[in-house]
């Protein structure tokens, strides 16, 4: 069943190729139908999936028998979770790309190819196949950013591609080495995981492959492609980049690096610089990412950079969860992948689509003057919900995930757990700052009752005094100097809102400021409902994830955690 997610996406690409370039409407329709179809397939497959049954093979046919390559698709609970996430992110992405007018057909063709590649990675259990899909997902990414991006898009796209390819090279080297050491007969993950690689080999292969994947997961200090890439990308591509592509990296870390080379997580013969193992090294890097990402997000001027760095911070929780090597930490990490996929998608949708496409600025200091909570109440509301979810409020999906990661971290690295807590606090701060600057500043400039009343009294110390309620009427009778100041300030404020409306500019897809379209509302509602649903009832996913962590495949990984 699950295999059809891949086939559907690529047949969607084929359909789009056949369309006439000017047929924008059909292109959208094809993209919508394909992504909804993919989601439905994923959901039906997930419904049929039995988490207790362990690894379920979806398709297995020989591919290049001489080399032992197979077309082998299979799922366990972790894959199911991420496939469903991909389906959801794909649908939301199409909804938020509804206004793409420039070469729509090509845009959606790249988009669907990307989605197809991502599905492929999450389903492959043959490592060569996984690698092929992995590369397949990166190429369309480059074109999406370079073709439809905004700020410094060529730079962003090239940086992303280069980082990804360096990572890929590391992964490929590690995989080929493993293939050769194991006798050059198979790339099957399950088979290879059973092969007893020598400890010395695992000690260098593990960091190589892990780092290769972690580049794409935004691990500090290999993260710097992420903010620039996110900012340069068009909205739907940022949503996918943060929502799904970064998960490819984290998924690879868990599924490939850790599963294949669990001995690489064991302690070294002697500690180096206070680190006892690669596990400590990556744990520390993850926490640096959490805190550093949050602190850098705190000082950004560009709204989208705030979200870009917040992704680095949140992905740090995934890596930290992986390094706890306990069931609770790992399930928290997988849940965080899902949760961040949804929340980052939502944040990018607000910033890129709802705000930027209308105001044509992302500079927080300029947005500050627009009074967007009045002009775009829906966007403000969505951002508030997404921001709360992002800062880890209980009741949203992020809390359950981070909470599990923190329990795991407490056990494995208490100091890092405390530092991650600091990261959460800085997260609160940058979210509040962005929310304040982008949406709520102008309402602070409006006069308050106390100011108005004070001005009134100072301007006209009339002997007669009535409750403030009637003073508005009295005000016209005696206009003192300070009263007129207050009036001017009061009058200034609707003008600001009007300025905001004007700046959307004529001829821009017919959207005025304050007109959030139906697809946007649908997409936002979908994502908000998801984060709330998982926040309130996380068992929906945990019932898939946890059996997968108890499978024989993960046994060695968990054993490495009992030190």
């Amino acid at each position, binding site marked *: 069943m699950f295999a059809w997610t891949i086939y559907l996406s690529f047949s969607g690409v084929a359909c789009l190729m056949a369309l006439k370039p000017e047929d924008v409407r059909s292109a959208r329709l094809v993209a919508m139908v394909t992504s909804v179809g993919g989601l439905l397939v994923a959901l039906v497959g997930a419904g049929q999936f039995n988490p207790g049954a362990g690894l379920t093979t979806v398709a297995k046919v020989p591919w290049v028998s001489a080399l032992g390559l197979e077309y082998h698709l299979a799922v366990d609970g972790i894959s199911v979770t991420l496939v469903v996430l991909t389906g959801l992110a794909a649908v939301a992405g199409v909804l938020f790309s509804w206004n793409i007018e420039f070469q729509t057909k090509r845009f959606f063709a790249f988009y669907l190819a990307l989605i197809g590649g991502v599905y492929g990675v999450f389903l492959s259990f043959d490592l060569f196949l996984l690698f092929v899909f992995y590369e397949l997902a990166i190429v369309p990414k480059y074109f999406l950013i370079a073709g439809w991006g905004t700020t410094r898009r060529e730079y962003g796209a090239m940086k992303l591609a280069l980082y990804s390819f360096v990572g890929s090279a590391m992964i490929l080297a590690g995989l080929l080495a493993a293939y050769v050491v194991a006798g050059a007969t198979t790339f099957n993950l399950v088979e290879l995981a059973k092969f007893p690689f020598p400890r010395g080999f695992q000690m260098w292969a593990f960091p190589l492959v892990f780092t290769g994947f972690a580049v794409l997961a935004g691990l500090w200090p290999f993260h710097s492609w992420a903010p620039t890439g996110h900012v340069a990308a068009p909205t739907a591509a940022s949503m996918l980049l943060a929502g799904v592509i970064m998960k490819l990296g984290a998924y690879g870390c868990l599924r490939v690096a850790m599963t294949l080379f669990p001995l690489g997580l064991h302690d070294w013969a002697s500690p180096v610089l206070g680190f006892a193992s690669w596990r400590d090294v990556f744990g520390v890097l993850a926490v640096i990412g959490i805190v550093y990402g949050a602190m850098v997000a705190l000082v950004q001027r560009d709204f989208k950079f705030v979200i870009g760095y917040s992704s680095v911070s949140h992905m740090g929780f995934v890596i930290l969860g992986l390094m706890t090597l306990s069931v609770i930490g790992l399930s928290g990490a997988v849940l965080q992948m899902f949760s961040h996929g949804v929340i980052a998608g939502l944040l990018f949708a607000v910033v890129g689509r709802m705000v930027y496409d209308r105001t044509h600025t992302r500079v927080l200091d300029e947005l500050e003057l627009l009074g967007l909570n009045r002009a775009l109440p829906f966007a403000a509301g969505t951002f508030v919900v997404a921001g709360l979810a992002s800062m880890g409020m209980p009741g949203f999906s992020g809390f359950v995930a981070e909470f599990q990661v923190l329990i795991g971290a*407490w056990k494995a690295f208490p100091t890092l757990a405390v530092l991650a807590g600091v990261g959460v*606090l800085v997260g609160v701060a940058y979210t509040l700052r962005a929310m304040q600057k982008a949406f709520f500043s102008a309402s602070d400039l409006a006069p308050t009752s106390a100011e108005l009343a004070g001005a009134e009294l100072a301007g006209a110390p009339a002997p007669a005094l009535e409750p403030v309620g009637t003073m508005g009427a009295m005000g016209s009778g005696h206009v003192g100097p300070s009263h007129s100041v207050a009036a001017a300030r009061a009058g200034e404020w609707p003008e600001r809102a009007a300025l905001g409306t004007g700046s959307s500019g004529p001829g821009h897809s017919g959207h005025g400021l304050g007109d959030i379209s139906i697809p946007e509302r649908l997409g936002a509602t979908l994502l908000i409902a998801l984060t709330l649903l998982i926040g309130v009832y996380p068992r929906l996913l945990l019932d898939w994830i*946890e059996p997968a962590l108890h499978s024989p495949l993960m046994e060695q990984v968990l054993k490495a955690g009992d030190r």
Partner: protein
Amino acid sequence: MEPAIASPSGPSWPWLTCLILSPILGAVIVAGMDRNRRTLAWGVGLLSMLVTLGLALAIWFQFDPARGEVQLVERHAWIPSVNVEYHLGVDGLSALMVMLAALIVPFALLAEWKRLGDPAAGAGDLARPGTPAFVALLLFLQAGMLGSFTALNFVHWFLFWELSLVPAYFLIKLWGGARRSAAANQFFVYTMVGSVTLLLSMLAVYLVTGSFDLIALAEKGRTGELASLFSLKLKWYGLSMRTLALVIFGGALLGFAVKVPLVPFHTWLPATYSEAPTGVSMVLTGVMSKMGVYGFLRILLPIFPEQMRWVLTPLLWLAVATVVLSACAAFAQRDLKRIVAYSSINHLGYCLLGIFAVARFVDSNPQWTTEKAAVLNGVLLQMFNHGLTASALFYFVGLIEQRTGRRGLEDFGGLRQVAPVFCGLMGIALFASLGLPGLNGFIGEFLIFKGVFPLVTWAAAFSTLGLLVTAVFILTIMQKVWSGPLETRWSQFLDLTLSERLVVIPALALMLVLGLWPQLVLGRINSTVLQMVEGLKL
């Protein structure tokens, strides 16, 4: 507290779930309204609060005061893999706090009626479109508070504890005074710091016990099993058992100390209370600050009694500092709202003093049981009384501000001449706050001091300074605002209108009733208190 659950089958009707859903339902309905439907939003909000009040009363009377343990329990699996349960129940403490939340929030909404209902009050922020949002947020806040007063699983409790922050933040940020944004941010960030340390501590507790169940954890804390588990299961950097347990206790303490607040973690409070709109200040001081004290009683005292004993002297010093310094600070203020805010810190300081005092280790003399029961009864009563009194005071200060645009202590004088009823009724609230016998404030403080004196004499002796200074600053308010020559500009100061009287008289009547017949509350809470005292024995 007894580890046993009252009735394993549970009640047939989920009263507590209904209690929490009622304001949420109201909030959802109101939030969906057109922004200009002010009166309708207000009416639906009030209706929903009255339903909640009815449910709270139903729970109050269903609660069997003879059995002090947790009753009306609802318990369902939630996240089984980490032992998180949907676990609700009330004992005497919870029932009292539920009543408080159900009473104060409608009082606060009624207090905002003037600004909500009068579109001509163009200056008032509430009169701007968006009143339904105000009402909806207030209802969400109520739901969060009710949820945290009834939850018995840490994660479940934490959910509501954190969620109540969000509506409070926006209520201050969008409808507050001139420096509302700064105040709201300060409030939010301070509380979040406490929440994060609290969460981290409780996660460590979970790690060693595998449980989030507050009742089961209390049992482990009582027997001292928890501390030994820490040293057994967590071998962090070779920390000794004592240090480790203290670090974890310190994290949890900070969470509640910020919320109550305990000096020196109080600095967010005056700014927040004075910038918040009147109704919101009433809820913040009346109910939300009780969430912190409730946390002390439900989580900190039962789970970490031993750790509290180890650092009892510093904790008592902090409580004494809270009582005395906040009273002095209130005396130094020149803004009525800030005076009431500091006096809030002072009154809750007595609660903390009592809580720390009962943690003291005593011999098996039955006299101590009596004293500790007196203190805890006093603490619970004080929580309820302060909720009532402080919100009434904020209401009166809000009225003064609404009428004049001023709230400076020096701006007024002689108001009694033009507004005798206003001053008379405000006097009842002020005297209740001062602790005059016959009014509600007296009984609570009396019981606390009665028990604290024998338990920790020096702390009680120092704290009486707080009582003294309180009397001074409250009398100063009366003198500066009511007496003296009447300034001509206030000669038209409006006395309490009929609707305002109707709003405030029930609250004042309750103050009198509780002052004369405290058994009304004590009868419901006494067996719970005795069980809490029992739980503190080794």
